[in-house]
Every structure is written in structure tokens, then in C-alpha cells.
């Protein structure tokens, strides 16, 4: 088996396209490989065996239709896709936006989780009076005691 083996390449493509339960995906892959290796054992060229088996996407669509796709698999992709804009939105929205988001989360999954999320993820709103504390927080005063900080006017 080499990386250029058409059967291996085909099985990789099929794996990417299949959407069923892990057990069903493994079974379809195993059956497909057995079929393709049988064809090659019958003297069919590996490339021709793959061509006769059919386009990986079409085969996967037919298999997905028969076996059904678990809800978790259906939801995974849109949820992951939504994570990035959601996280960017969280970091950029105002305090009011965060409260509204937390309220939505609370309504969806419970108030306790919404409040926990707000406390955990909400970034502090920095103001001028916090500036003198920043060097100390960063450890600068210990290393450079002569430097003092003030908010630029």
C-alpha cells in the first residue's frame, strides 16, 4: 500500500464524505475496501476498480441516506462554524450586549449557567484609574522600581 494507491485515496475521500454513526462509517469503509480489493484480486486495475465503484461523494450520499445522520453530527458543523463569530462578537460587544447574550443563554439552558458564563467570560471595562495598577500587575515595579506610571493626558 502506497500513498498513491488509488484505493487508499478513494477510501480517504469516502471517509471525508460519510456522515453516519462511527460504527456505520467503519462498516461502509471496510465493505468498500473489501469490494475494491476483490476487484483487484480479479485482475481489475485499481484505478478502474475505483472508477467502477462510483464517485465517492455519490456513494457517501447514498449511504448517508440509508443510514441516517445522527443529530450530533448534523449540529456539530454549524455549531463549530458559529463559534468564531460568536466569540468575536462576545469580545467586541458592550457590557449591555454581554448581558443580553447572557440572558439568552440563561433562557436557553438555565440562569445559573448564564450567570456563570457572564462572570467567567466578561472582560473588564478598563478605565483611567486602573492605569497605575497595570505595571505592578505585570511585575514591572519589582524589576524597575524607579519607573512610575500615569495615564497620558
Amino acid at each position, binding site marked *: 500500500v502506497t500513498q498513491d494507491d488509488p484505493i487508499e485515496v478513494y477510501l480517504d475521500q469516502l471517509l471525508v464524505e460519510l456522515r453516519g454513526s462511527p460504527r456505520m462509517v467503519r462498516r461502509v469503509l471496510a*465493505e468498500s475496501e*473489501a*469490494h475494491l480489493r*476483490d476487484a483487484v484480486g480479479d485482475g481489475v486495475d485499481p484505478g478502474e476498480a475505483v472508477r*467502477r*465503484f*462510483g464517485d465517492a461523494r*455519490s*456513494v457517501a450520499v*447514498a449511504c448517508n441516506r440509508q443510514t441516517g445522520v445522527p443529530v450530533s453530527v448534523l449540529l456539530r458543523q454549524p455549531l463549530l462554524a458559529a463559534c468564531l463569530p460568536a466569540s468575536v462578537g462576545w469580545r467586541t460587544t458592550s457590557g449591555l450586549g454581554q448581558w443580553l447574550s447572557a440572558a439568552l443563554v440563561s433562557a436557553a439552558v438555565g440562569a445559573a449557567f448564564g450567570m456563570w458564563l457572564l462572570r467567567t467570560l466578561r472582560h473588564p471595562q478598563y478605565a483611567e484609574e486602573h492605569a497605575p495598577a497595570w505595571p505592578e500587575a505585570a511585575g514591572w515595579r519589582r524589576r524597575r522600581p524607579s519607573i512610575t506610571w500615569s495615564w497620558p493626558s
Partner: protein
Amino acid sequence: MLKGHLDLLLLGLLRRGPQHGYAVITGLAELSGGHIDLPEGTVCPALHKLEAGGLVASEWSTSDGRKRRVYALTGDGRAALAARQEKWSLFSRGVEAVLA
């Protein structure tokens, strides 16, 4: 046209005895004189559908050091085959009569 009758063909083929997917495909091609030539990958999901419907049963089998999924007709599968065969006979006789 073949799409609607693939189940009947698969059940008919499995009536001859348990077979694995590749044997099913080659059997279809040979017995039909090469007239039935499907993308081979379509047979696997069709067999899965029949299995989900309880018309065939399958298990892994190893022969010549190779692992294959072997499909066999169930009792329900035999009954379904008889019913579909009867429908097909009526249909084909009707078509023949019209075309004669």
C-alpha cells in the same frame, strides 16, 4: 428504471445463497448478460437498506485471509421476494401486451 427494481434484483440474487457485495455485483452483471451495469458502490447502501428492513441479514466472514460482509436472505426477505416477483410478472406481462 433500474433504481426502482434494484431491491428485487438483489433479493433474487441472494435467493441463490449468501453472498458478499462483490459477488452480488458480478452476479448481477453476469446473469443479466452485461445489461445491468451499475456503479458498484450503489449496491452497498442498497443492501444496508434491505438489512434495515429485515429482508436480509449480514455478518463478517473471513475466507482466503480476506474479511468480507456476507449477506443472506431472511424469511421476511423470501416472502418479500415472492410478493415483488408476482408484481413484476404482472407488470412485465402488461407491458408486453401493450407493446405486442
